[in-house]
């Protein structure tokens, strides 16, 4: 789960990490007053769950309350398109307005999971303010790392070592140690998959400030953090993805026209890959999960056919705990209730597959059956 920058900064503040003085506004008038309170200047930052906001025109230094009012009026209620969003962008409902900070140096700090080590890792770089993926690809030697042992947490010597590599000394080094320790604690205590400060700036007056803040939470750890669950903002997600997630269905919206209903993440990825190799183009990834019942299957199908770009639907189910007849009834029910009429390619395998196929045959829906993945691929190819 992602949270907004202002929410991440509130968490930073709780852990003692310095952030710029600022306030959130959801109207142009309020934005103008905040800029007035900040002394007539402010940095306005659109609050969306996407990076690349600067390049998308979502961040601006304003030098007067009227300028703030005008800029924020143009942002609020609009969709911001950045290099990391789709062509439709994501809605801006609020902005964060902060006092401008004089920047001397920009650093990068993050805590993320090192899967190969099975530990969290603290990453640091003096190439702050840049896309860290690009830095990692072009200049891997510019990124320093320290593994965080779960028994010990981040040890002070590790912070000292990183600060020294970043060329920090004196008070700046001490402030950096504190920020490193704090983001490591945030990651562990709040079950984060990412805590990122990019950039962490050394100001012209020598202070250390987290200019940006990004926190991604481990969905599987959320049950421990009722308070953080409330930070969820469904407006930032694809509506079908949000609807599916609420039902416990894994759904990812894609660009194509072939709606896909599959059980199991691996089989779903495999089916999508196969679709593409035969010239088809999937409209979605959908893993209905283990042990789905008729209602859940029907709900999943309704999400798929509610997508206007879906012209055909592929169903690929490997019945185990999930019975094929139950799944077939769910699909037929959803098509009846929605009046959907897209042609279906159906491949059922495993528990009660004959009963499932019979239900499809008797439904009157336009169904083409496939026994194997190869046959399914051919059917996709022919219907394209």
């Amino acid at each position: 789960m992602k949270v907004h920058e202002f929410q991440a900064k509130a968490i930073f503040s709780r852990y003692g990490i310095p952030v710029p003085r600022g306030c959130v506004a959801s109207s142009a008038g309020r934005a103008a007053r905040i800029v007035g309170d900040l002394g007539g200047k402010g940095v306005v930052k659109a609050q969306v769950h996407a990076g690349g906001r600067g390049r998308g025109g979502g961040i601006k230094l304003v030098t007067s309350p009227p300028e703030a009012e005008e800029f924020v009026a143009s942002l609020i209620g609009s969709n911001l398109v950045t290099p990391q969003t789709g062509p439709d962008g994501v809605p801006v409902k609020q902005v964060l307005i902060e006092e401008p900070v004089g920047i001397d140096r920009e650093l990068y700090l993050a805590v993320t999971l090192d899967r190969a080590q099975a530990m969290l890792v603290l990453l640091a770089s003096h190439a702050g303010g840049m896309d860290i993926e690009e830095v990692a690809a072009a200049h891997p030697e510019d990124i320093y790392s320290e593994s965080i042992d779960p028994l010990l947490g981040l040890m002070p010597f590790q912070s000292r070592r990183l600060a020294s590599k970043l060329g920090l000394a004196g008070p700046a080094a001490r402030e950096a140690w504190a920020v490193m320790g704090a983001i490591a604690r945030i990651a562990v205590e709040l079950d984060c998959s990412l805590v990122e400060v990019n950039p962490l700036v050394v100001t012209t007056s020598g202070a250390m400030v987290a200019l940006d803040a990004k926190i991604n939470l481990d969905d599987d750890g959320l049950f421990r953090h009722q308070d953080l669950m409330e930070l969820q903002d469904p407006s930032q997600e694809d509506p079908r993805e949000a609807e599916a997630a609420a039902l416990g269905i894994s759904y990812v919206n894609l660009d194509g026209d072939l709606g896909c209903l599959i059980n199991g993440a691996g089989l779903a990825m495999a089916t999508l890959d196969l679709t593409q190799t035969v010239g088809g183009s999937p409209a979605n990834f959908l893993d209905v999960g283990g042990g789905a019942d008729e209602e859940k299957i029907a709900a999943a199908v309704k999400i798929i056919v509610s997508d206007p770009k879906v012209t055909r639907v592929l169903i690929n189910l490997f019945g185990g705990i999930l019975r094929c007849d139950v799944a077939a009834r769910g699909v037929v029910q959803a098509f009846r209730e929605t009046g959907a009429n897209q042609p279906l390619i159906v491949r059922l395998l495993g528990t009660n597959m004959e009963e499932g196929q019979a239900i499809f045959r008797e439904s009157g829906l336009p169904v083409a059956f496939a026994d194997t993945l190869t046959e399914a691929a051919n059917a996709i190819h022919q219907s394209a």
Partner: protein
Amino acid sequence: MGILVDAGTRAIVQGITGREGSFHAAACMDYGANVVAGVTPGRGGQLFREQVPIFDSVEEAVRETQPNASLIFVPPPFAADAIVEAADSGIPLVVCVTEGVPVQDMVRVYRYLERKNTRLVGPNSPGVINPGANCKLGIMPGSIHQPGRAGVVSRSGTLTYEAVHQLTREGIGQSSCVGIGGDPIIGTGFVDALRLFDADAQTNLVVLIGEIGGSMEQEAADYIRESFSKPICALVVGATAPPGKRMGHAGAIITGRNATAASKIAALQQAGAKVIPTPADIGSTARSVIDHL
């Protein structure tokens, strides 16, 4: 022969009284697995299926029934506790089916297990099966399997069943199948499973099924190139996944270059694995490799 489980496996099921635990414990027993005890705190003294004793703790189950494996079905908040309880009681093999275990829990459990002689498979694993020994510890449909000499190792559930189905249709039986789990941090990785298959006299071919996310396939590639002595076919799925999106499995997410399907396929191919061109070609690729043995 085969790996991890065999006719000598004496299993306990942690969470045996839950909906999934009871259903699958019964299915494992019907397949032929020797389930010697169940564990559900607070339900000690009862019997499962009127024959399998249930205990309040793993420690009691170990004392009374001498198991050498545990199959875990407890809900995600209690999975770390269940794994550590099994390891603390000295059980050498723990298979954790539970999906949705918090990553921070697994970070701590993984570190804890480093000083224990317990092998963890999973979490988020469909389990392990040895068809020749009629032993399965997991949730896979037993009926699609057939005894034979191909080893299967995979990060997935239903895609593993698809692979097994294709192999069986080609007349290629399986020595053992291991679902290592779809989570970012898992106990037994590809390399560990390949080591076991390398040492298993029954296995003469391995089918490896990877997916996007992490770098476990690259680690497998390094091991294959340097030490693996048997033919291996490999499929990596998720080529169509957009970056940064979790594709069902918590571990199937593209963050960084190593995590892409293309990068993993290239590494496995360079290491000498026979690349399975599409997910429809698992059986036929294995067949062509066997025919050239």
